[in-house]
């Protein structure tokens, strides 16, 4: 076993912390929103990776650490469930499926979540310091258009791939086929159970 991976969480924090705080500084409204969180700590435990990442809100940014001390709120989840946390309607389902566990002050979790969702770095303002206002505005608007175009292309590619997999290549079943298969399996299960009962009855008769 190589010794370095034990320090990977520290490596992640070392790289991510300045990047995150740079992003926060690029949003002029973020500092004010941070005041409401000041001194609060949120721990995110990724159960599959066995990592506990602690976010501490400070007046001038958010510090990332990996410690076991008591914090305001602990969110335990798997890495693949992390993205689903953005959608509040998924929370109940994730808790029910034991894919998410929240321990502590739920209000602090909501505040942290709100802070990150509202984070809007002003790239154009930052860029204008290097290339001037007009050029920065032009670059920012073209980048926005490019991102929108990429999102559209991505959605379209996803739809085309799904259609290809379902209808052309028949790699996966369409919804109706899946429903029919599910019904067939249920019927087969019922018949198997019936047969098992019948066999039991026959065995009992033979025993007499």
């Amino acid at each position, binding site marked *: 076993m190589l010794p370095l991976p*034990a*320090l990977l969480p*520290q490596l992640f924090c*070392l790289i991510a912390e300045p990047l995150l705080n740079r992003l926060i500084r690029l949003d002029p409204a973020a500092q004010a929103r941070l005041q409401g969180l000041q001194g609060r700590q949120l721990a995110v435990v990724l159960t599959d990776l066995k990592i506990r990442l602690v976010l501490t809100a400070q007046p001038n940014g958010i510090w990332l650490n990996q*410690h076991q001390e008591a914090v305001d709120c602990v969110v335990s989840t798997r890495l693949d469930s992390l993205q689903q946390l953005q959608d509040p309607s998924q929370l109940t389902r994730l808790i029910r499926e034991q894919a998410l566990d929240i321990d502590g002050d739920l209000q602090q979790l909501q505040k942290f979540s709100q802070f990150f969702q509202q984070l809007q770095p002003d790239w154009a303002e930052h860029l204008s310091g290097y290339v001037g206002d007009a050029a920065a505005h032009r670059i920012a608007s073209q980048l926005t258009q490019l991102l929108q175009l990429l999102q559209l292309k991505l959605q379209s590619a996803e739809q085309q791939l799904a259609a290809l997999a379902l209808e052309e290549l028949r790699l996966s079943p369409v919804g109706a086929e899946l429903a029919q298969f599910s019904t067939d399996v249920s019927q087969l299960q019922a018949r198997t159970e019936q047969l098992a009962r019948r066999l039991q009855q026959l065995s009992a008769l033979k025993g007499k």
Partner: protein
Amino acid sequence: MTEQHQDAAQTAQNTTTHFGFQTVQAEQKVSLVANVFHSVAAKYDVMNDLMSLGIHRLWKRFTIDCSGVRPGQKVLDLAGGTGDLTALFSRRVGPTGQVVLADINESMLNVGKDKLRDLGLVNNISYVQANAEALPFADNSFDIITIAFGLRNVTDKDAALRSMFRVLKPGGRLLVLEFSKPTEAWLSKVYDVYSFKLLPVMGKLVANDSESYQYLAESIRMHPDQDTLRQMMEHAGFAQTSYHNLTGGIVALHRGYKF
């Protein structure tokens, strides 16, 4: 051997100590170590990055993680040198807390002062030139004490640990980050080749000082291993002592509490 001769030999042994692989008089070690750090102070950070391939930053972050530092706390960064840990602590204790950067070596302290001022960290940091064996602070003054890559250069380590115990508040914790003994035989061999062959050459090329880096390699080998240091901490009065090996035991972080 007569009793008188035994006493004389014992006294001579008590007043000598290690300086790398050499045996020197205890009072001589302070000035020898001081010379080493006066010589390397200017290139200390560059050499740290070069020698450890930047991994020393991860070891220091791990130390911060294990410190459980909170806003408002008072921290002593002993043998703090160029202030890497002080910078991390300063941001975390915030304006209501305080970090004291202490080092016995004036050159190192000056490099640390300049660096931290350049980083804009001025409000909650104070600087003290101090000997770890006789800390100039009142009893029960600090919530956290760290000593990173400093303890092995101290002449009387037991006295230094007792001094740290005295100035630590009840409930406070001591963190000792120091080179230690690799846990794997293969790593130990690679590390020996690196330390005794490559390190002095790097020292010569970058800092124009191979002797200081030869001393570094030798002083690491003479430093107590993980379990011995843990026992020394317990003898000094620390409770719940433990250690984490980092990078295969090349470095170990020892932790102990004062109750």
